[in-house]
Each structure stands twice: as C-alpha cells, then as structure tokens.
C-alpha cells in the first residue's frame, strides 16, 4: 500500500506558560514536537505497510525547522518524507493548509490511503483532514478507532461517534483521520535514527506542487485572527475549611443547605 501521512510540528503545549502581563505565550524553552496525535496516524500507516508491503511517506507544511519532525517520523520507520516550506505558505489557515497539502499529495503520485491525526494540539481544529479529502475529491472517514480489514480496493474501519461506533466500508483511495484508540505509537529505533539523520528530505516551495498562489498563506486564507486574549474567570467562592472532623461535619451541613437554596435538593 502506498500511504501518505501529513504531520504537523507543534509547540509542546502541555508545558506552555503564559506571560501574565502581555497575555502571550512564552516561547522560550518551549520544545517543538511532532503533533502527538499524528503519532497514531504514523503507527497505523507503519502497521499497514508492515502487514501488506508498500511505502509510507510523511508530509509536512511548516517552517524549515519542521524538517526535524519529518526526521523523527523517518526514525520511527517511515520510508520517505517531503517538506512544504516557503514564506508563501506562512499564515495559512486550515482551508489554505489543506489546499497546499492536497497539492503536495497530488505531486507525490497515486496513493491508497492518506492518514491524518485527529487534530493538531496547537490549533486544535481537526479540519485539515476532511479539507484535504474535499480538495482531492476523495471519500473521508473521521475519528477512526480501528482498521478492521483491508482488501479488494476497500478498507473497513470503526468510526467512534457520540453514542457508539459505526462500522464503515470505504473505497480506496481515501482519507482517514485516526484517534488515539487505534494503536500505541512505537518509539524510534537506533537504526531508524541513523537512517533518518542522513535521509534526503526534499523541501518544496509553491512552484513544486502546482498551486495557485492566490490560495496560499495568510492572503489566501478566508479566516483572520482579529483578537487574542486570556480567558477570565470570576465567581465569588464561599470557602469552607474542612480540615478536621467538626469542619467536615459543618461543611456537609452547609453543602446540603446550599443545594436547597439552589433548589437542587
């Protein structure tokens, strides 16, 4: 199987700190990592390839430094990688990002599957996968929690939805976005790391895949961020100390009375 995995490099948000004064993100010392949710897409791709043969190509759009994310994917066992990187792509929203990635997928040639993460942990939108499918006019299944089987130009998957899971049969080629439940990502191997260090990662600009410059970057993006601010929280909390047995007793009493005041008891 020929599989393409679009991966994004993101800041490690769980360690993100905010500057209280300016309300901006403190970027110093924040590491750039492979979007954690893309590791599940990579793992799924590698398992399919290991079972059925073929090739896994990783694709990323981002600054030149995003090459590191691609090398990490190579060290996990992906076969090759390509980076879309040029100032023309900078500032793209999900519409423009999926446009550029779809063009890169076309340039890579015929494939059977495009496997995306559920969403990127920085923007947190989950829109790029379905967007790529729309640009390429491919079927898409989102929130895939399991691949049931592959065969005869079709793939059968489980899609996790609100009240349960759907079993769906999709024609290949198609786009899948996968959730964590699908597989535990493997770690890079020593051999993989060695190979990744020297592998050739081509860097493509807007001339490489054939794209319409009007649809790229900030100017090609329909949406604009117009304001950024810190969430504020303000309620008056009635605090009850319950450090000892009488305190606990009194707090329980007050809890019940409070619920009655609110007509909850």
């Amino acid at each position, binding site marked *: 199987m020929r599989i393409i995995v679009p991966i994004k490099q993101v800041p490690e*948000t769980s360690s*993100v700190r905010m500057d209280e004064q300016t*309300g901006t*993100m403190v970027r110093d010392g924040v590491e750039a990592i492979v979007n954690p949710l893309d590791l599940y897409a990579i793992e799924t791709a590698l398992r399919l390839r290991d079972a059925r043969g073929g090739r896994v190509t990783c694709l990323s759009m981002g600054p030149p430094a995003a090459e590191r994310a691609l090398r990490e994917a190579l060290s996990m066992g992906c076969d090759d990688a390509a980076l879309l990187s040029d100032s023309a792509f900078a500032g793209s929203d999900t*519409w423009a990002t*999926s446009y550029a990635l779809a063009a890169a997928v076309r340039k890579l040639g015929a494939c059977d599957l495009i496997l995306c993460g559920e969403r990127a*942990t*920085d*923007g*947190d*939108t*989950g*829109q*790029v996968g*379905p*967007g790529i499918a*729309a640009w390429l006019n491919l*079927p*898409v299944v*989102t*929130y895939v929690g399991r691949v049931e089987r592959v065969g005869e130009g079709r793939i059968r998957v489980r*899609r996790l*939805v609100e009240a*349960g*899971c759907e*079993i*769906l*049969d*999709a*024609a290949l080629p*198609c786009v899948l976005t996968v959730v964590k439940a699908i597989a535990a990502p493997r770690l890079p191997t020593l051999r993989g790391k060695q190979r990744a260090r020297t592998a050739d990662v081509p860097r493509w600009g807007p001339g490489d895949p054939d794209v319409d410059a009007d649809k790229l970057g900030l100017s090609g993006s*329909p*949406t604009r*961020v117009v*304001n*950024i*601010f*810190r*969430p504020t*929280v303000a*309620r008056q*909390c*009635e*605090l*009850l*100390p*319950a*450090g000892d047995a009488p*305190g*606990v007793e009194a*707090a*329980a*009493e007050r*809890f*019940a009375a*409070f619920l*009655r005041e*609110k007509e*909850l*008891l």
Partner: protein
Amino acid sequence: MAIGPELPGADLAELIERGADAVVAVEDERLRHFDLERYAACLGRLIRQRRPEIVIAAATTTGRTLMPYVAVTVDAGLTADCTVLDIDAETGRLLQTRPAIGGHILATIATPTHRPQMATVRPHSTPPAARDAARRGEIERLAADDLPESRVRRVDFLPDDEEGGIQDAERVVAVGRGIKRADNIAIVRDLADALGAALGATREVVDRGWLSYPHQIGLSGKTITPKLYVGVGVSGSIQHLAGMQTAETIVAINSDPDAQLFRVADLGIVGDLFEVVPKLTERVRLGVEIA
C-alpha cells in the same frame, strides 16, 4: 436546515418555536445516517442556491466532518469549535471566539471577504433558546433527488453500553486524579448516585484508564452546561475549565486551598476528599429522605 429521512413535523416545528424563522428539511431515505458525500451535496447545494451569510453547525463528530469538507467545496472560511459567537456592530461580520493553544488563550476569528462565514459551535456552550409556542415560521420540505453515489458504506452500528452520558445530564459529579486509585472512584459514584448526577472525569483519570473516554470533560473531552457541577479532587486546569465553567452552579472539593477550581466555584470545601465526600453523600441521602 435539517437533513434526514422523513423528518417528524413536531421536530421541525420545535426549531421554529426555538427561534428559527424558516426551516428547510431535505429528506430522503438515503440520508437516514450521516453519509458525508451525500450530506455535503445537500448542504453545498443549499449554500449555492440561497447564499447565506452565516452557516453554523454543532461541533459534533458529524458537524466537525461535514463543515470542513463543505467549506472547501464552497470556498468559505470555517472556524472550529467556537464557544462564543457575536456580530461586529460596525462591519456586520461574525466574530467567532474559540479556545486555542490548549485552552491557554481565546482567539477571536473573522472571515472578512469569503461567504458564507462558517463555524462549528461546541455543544452546550450556551443553553438552548427557550421554546415559544406562539412563534410562527415557514417549513419547507425538499426532496433530495440527485444524491451522489457514496463511496463509504455503513455496514453496522455498535451502540455504547455506557452508563448515563454526561452531556445531557442536569447534574454532573466529576472526579480528578485526587482520587488516587480506580477502586476509590466508588465513593464519588455514591455521591453522584445520591445527587442523581452523572459521573464525569478529568483527562488524568481517563488517561489512567480509571474511567472511559466518554466521561472526559474539557477541551479534548465534552463540554457540559449542567445546573450543578461538583468537582472532587480536580485541580481545575485551564483545559478542564474549558469544558465546564459555564455550569450554573459549581462546587469544588479539594485539599489544596489554592486549587484553580476554587476560582470558578460558588462553594468550595477545603479538605480531604476521603473524609469529606462520604459525609456529603450521607447528608444528601438524609436530605432526600426528609423531602
């Protein structure tokens, strides 16, 4: 706009009673279940024909799949997972506010030139509009004649046999890592039962496998707007708050007086949950008996 097989008139009328001026129902047996290519064809066609300024859908698994696909086909801007929508008084533009960077910031996004302006909205981020039986509006039923062949076939559906969902619950008791072990959750479950509440959890609890993912409240879980939220051993991280701070009444139980959850709470009990929670349960049971 409602998409489905023959849709019950009462449901369409409810949309009017809750504020719609007109309802367009696109009906076909082949639209019984969510089928992206067919739903996208229906929504895309309606957008091209009626040229709406704004298209809003719920940020459910369906909305989060349909909207980005359609946004590309109709050249529209789309903002995911909004928690607040507003109209700019000067420009008339839709202002779409959503959490970003793991909930550390809120970003307001606009779509200056492309139309329609599309957004998905987190379920329960605002309470539903009240019903007004006196409201009148037009209901239009359309047949979906030329639906495309779909390349994805639905073979089966396996419903979750999970206990009561947190999303629609009027009361939710949430448990955090302070509970320390899966076995201990029983004491929180007792409190939830006594209150007639559903059981929710933080990501720490779900990641450890103590409760399953459908229980997760927060940025990467569910957004809830219950009448009562009780957080037990929950620190109140910004990502958790993103999923519950619109609850009507919030109670926090935590041994750390500086826990963030107290900042959004109406009532806070500073103490050891293992001492406090059984007493609360006892008190609530007593209260229920007296009443």
